């Protein structure tokens, strides 16, 4: 074996070996048991075999793909882009006009302006239905808040609606609905009964958010009769400090308003 290798090596250095013979040499020197006198050849063949295993890094392919892709897209896509842009613009115009025309003709045709007041009535009944006391368990809080907020659209308050809102303010189990009712009621604060209801409610409410909201509303509408209630609140040890401060401040402001 070693003799063969020696012959092969001679042939190799003369540049006369075939690929097959060179592979034999590489394999021979890759194996651990190389005789000492041939050891000096090992580094060379070992290097060749190892160098063959080198590969570009993993990110290289990715970078290459990125690099080759843009030139491919460049000039072609720009042309396509123009066409697509024009087409998209036209489509948008057509759709816009179409939708506008359809919307208009629909309004003119079936419902008309007279329906608007009817619509408002429908809203009111809808709102009454949702906020009705016996319904409170079957409707969700967000539904009731929505109903309360519908009252903003109503231009003239009637007793039914304000009474409904007052009930909601006082008895709704959900804080957020009560808060919404409180805010909605400030819109109707011109009504005397609403003012009274707000003052009375302040005595009932225990949630600090609503207490503060009520105090602010009453101060905003300059309801002097609330001063007494404010002072009571300010003295109440069970009430949150912030609320008591707010109440004192509110009382002072109403008093100073004279």
């Amino acid at each position, binding site marked *: 074996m070693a003799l063969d290798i020696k012959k092969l090596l001679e042939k*190799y*250095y*003369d*540049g*006369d070996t075939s*690929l097959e013979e*060179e*592979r034999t040499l590489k394999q021979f020197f890759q194996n651990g048991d190389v005789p000492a006198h041939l050891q*000096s*050849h090992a*580094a*060379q063949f*070992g*290097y*060749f075999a*190892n*160098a*063959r295993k*080198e*590969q*570009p*890094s993993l990110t*290289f*392919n990715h*970078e*290459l793909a990125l*690099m*080759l*892709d843009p*030139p*491919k897209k460049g000039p*072609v896509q720009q042309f396509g882009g123009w066409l697509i842009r024009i087409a998209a613009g036209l489509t948008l115009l057509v759709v816009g006009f179409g939708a506008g025309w359809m919307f208009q003709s629909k309004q003119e045709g079936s419902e008309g302006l007279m329906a608007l007041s009817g619509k408002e009535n429908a809203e009111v009944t809808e709102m009454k239905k949702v906020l009705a006391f016996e319904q409170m368990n079957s409707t969700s809080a967000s539904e009731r808040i929505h109903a309360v907020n519908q009252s903003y659209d109503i231009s003239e308050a009637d007793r039914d609606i304000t009474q409904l809102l007052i009930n909601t303010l006082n008895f709704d189990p959900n804080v957020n609905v009560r808060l919404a009712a409180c805010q909605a009621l400030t819109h109707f604060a011109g009504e005397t009964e609403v003012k009274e209801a707000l003052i009375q409610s302040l005595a009932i409410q225990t949630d600090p958010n609503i207490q503060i909201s009520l105090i602010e509303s009453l101060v905003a509408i300059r309801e002097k009769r609330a001063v007494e209630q404010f002072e009571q609140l300010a003295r109440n040890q069970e009430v949150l400090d912030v609320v008591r401060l707010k109440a004192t401040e509110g009382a002072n402001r109403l008093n100073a308003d004279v």
Partner: protein
Amino acid sequence: MPLNMDLQAFNQRILPVQGRLFRLAQMFLRNREEAEDAIQDVFLRLWTNRQQLESYQSVEALAVQMTKNLCLDRLKSHDKQKTTRDADMVAMQAADASPYRQAENNDSAGLMHRLISELPEQQRLVLHLRDVEEYTLEEIEEVTGLSNTNIRTILSRARQKLRENYLKAENYGTGY
């Protein structure tokens, strides 16, 4: 999308050669990043000239030639930069030689790499193509344009020279 197909076809023809081109560039430039950069350049050039690729018999041979030329160009411009940057070339080389070479001598692969890069350019290329990449003589002919006998001679010289230099370096190293 015919253009898309084109990229696919291009990848199919070129990507298998990628490793070979990379190793060739690494052999010349002796630096992984620079080698990757160089073959990226080669691929880009091939891609931009893809219409003409059909007329070449072997895209691989072309790519190998391009890689070789590009690497040699880069090496030349490196050398120029070095000369202009430092007038006192001799002093720099001397300073550069000892720690760097000693570090390289520490592993035989590094030493081999250095010894190969000290061979004349043609010997380097032929030796690499044959002994690392295992090209047939015909394939080397295609890349280099040299005759069969010429290639054998160059190969023989390169192998002998490499061994000679290796023994010298080893004796020098161990005798020290």
